[in-house]
């Protein structure tokens, strides 16, 4: 949902005259929403701008996004970062499965608690 939120914000900024580029890892969510410019990095959710502590890779991805701001001539322009995840691609098969649930333990508890609180506020008309 993070990808959807940045996509919605980017669309709003574009509508109001501010050029944008998204650097993301969930290509389908960004393209389903529809945005002006998009650098897709085929990495696990969490590191769209390059592998942790690989400053050279991060710089290349960020520079490519900046160059895309200038070079794109039409909306829905997606380019793909030329990198593959250094630890292999097993993560692609495991994400959102019984074996590797997206949220578990404390993270799942926090999510359920936040959801309950949101419902409570919504019933009171406070959100």
């Amino acid at each position: 949902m993070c990808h959807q939120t940045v996509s919605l914000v980017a669309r709003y900024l574009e509508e109001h005259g501010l050029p944008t580029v998204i650097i993301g890892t969930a290509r389908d969510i960004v393209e389903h929403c529809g945005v002006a410019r998009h650098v897709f990095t085929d990495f696990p959710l969490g590191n769209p701008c390059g592998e942790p502590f690989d400053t050279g890779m991060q710089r290349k991805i960020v520079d490519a996004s900046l160059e895309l701001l200038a070079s794109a001539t039409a909306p829905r322009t997606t380019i793909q970062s030329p990198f593959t995840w250094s630890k292999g691609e097993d993560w692609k098969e495991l994400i959102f499965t019984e074996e590797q649930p997206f949220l578990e333990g404390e993270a799942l508890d926090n999510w359920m608690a936040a959801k309950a609180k949101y419902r409570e506020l919504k019933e009171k008309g406070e959100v």
Partner: protein
Amino acid sequence: MDYVRYIDRTRDYYLSQGYEKPYEWAHFDEVPFTPLQKPLSECRIALVSTSDIAVKGDEDEGDPAEQLFIGNVYSIPANIPVEQLYSHQEHYDVHATSLDDPNSFFPVTRLQEAASDGLIASVTERVHGVFTAYSHRRTLENDAPEVLKRCREDGADAVVLTPV
């Protein structure tokens, strides 16, 4: 291997977990587009992220309901040393990676370097966080206009946006 289709994957997963109604992902046929108005090397660039980026030592980590469902916008100074930044976001692929390096999802140092090298003119004084709202309308009617306002106040010519 082809890229992961998260919309299909999450629908199948949550159906298997007993959720009946699949989440409705935002979709639009029309896509707005604004060309860059000046050469990239003269542009001031803003950074906006949904990564829950935060400053160490700010003990108040905020309202979890706000961060996960309600939405909101906040700003931090762009020149803050990256060592002072962290994310307490829990919604990423914890099995495959970490958020230990802020520049892997909030590339504020890399943007400053691009400015030092002359690829862009500068980074705006503030960079911004947006909390994800469950409601698309909340994001479009409250948070996106607030981001636009702050970017304009800072004289941004273009915006880089990063999710986690």
